[in-house]
């Protein structure tokens, strides 16, 4: 499976980003380059999990406001700034679900279904696709978020670990278990 290259930065890009962070820590007005770089990624992460476009834009703004307010506390750990933003985004998003401002939605593209079928089954029929779609609807949210990040958003295990605040290995194990549960839902007799 191919992995989204957005997350993986060269050392040079990480250093450039770090210099933007240091500048923003001294002067919030210098937050511009970080905002410009990550606005779309964070918006897409949020909008992927809900149905209300305007609310998704609002939550994205809230994420950047929180990041700006807390940037003095940010500690560089050798990973892109986005992992910190994703963690804020995750917390803001789930707060919106708890406050019932938004409803947890899963957005799937047809080609994602084919990719999952390829990973877990040999049968590529339309019927299998329908069963898979129905099985995904039955999954628990915590398993779904791993499938979403791994298969729909093509994130590496390292990035998934950073977002969920678990180790890379733990992310691997959890994603494997989620896939196993999905297999069980598709083929209950196995």
């Amino acid at each position: 499976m191919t992995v989204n290259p957005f997350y993986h930065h060269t050392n040079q890009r990480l250093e450039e980003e770090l210099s933007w962070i240091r500048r923003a820590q001294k002067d919030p007005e210098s937050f511009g380059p970080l905002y410009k770089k990550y606005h779309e990624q964070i918006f897409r992460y949020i909008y992927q999990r809900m149905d209300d476009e305007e609310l998704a834009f609002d939550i994205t703004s809230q994420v950047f406001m929180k990041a700006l307010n807390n940037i003095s506390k940010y500690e560089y750990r050798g990973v892109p700034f986005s992992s910190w933003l994703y963690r804020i985004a995750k917390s803001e998003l789930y707060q919106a679900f708890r406050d019932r401002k938004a409803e947890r939605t899963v957005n799937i593209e047809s080609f994602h279904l084919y990719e999952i079928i390829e990973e877990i089954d040999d049968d590529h029929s339309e019927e299998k696709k329908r069963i898979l779609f129905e099985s995904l609807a039955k999954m628990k949210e915590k398993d779904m978020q791993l499938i979403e990040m791994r298969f729909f958003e093509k994130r590496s295990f390292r990035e998934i670990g950073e977002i969920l605040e678990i180790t890379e290995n733990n992310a691997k194990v959890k994603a494997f278990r989620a896939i196993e549960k999905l297999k069980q839902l598709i083929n209950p007799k196995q």
Partner: protein
Amino acid sequence: MEIKKINLDRKNLTSTYIELRQDLKPILNLARNTKMTDFKSPWFYGAIGLSSMAIAVLFNNEMNSKTAINDETITLKKQKATSSIKNNIQIDRSYNVNS
């Protein structure tokens, strides 16, 4: 948490459209305003903590001094009562002797 809805092939938003919605100014303004009323700052909690401690100490002192005054009053009243009883007894005795 429950998954409420699953969409298949929802219309994708273009990068250009998302970029058009970028606006850092209101975020900077909001962040500035939030900073001014930052209830989460250690200074805020420090000040609140210290003043509540001071109020607690003052209240405690006040209560102690009131109890001490009450105790003194009770002791004085007791002393007066005892001495008057003693006087009465003496008067009674002298009356008996005289009679």
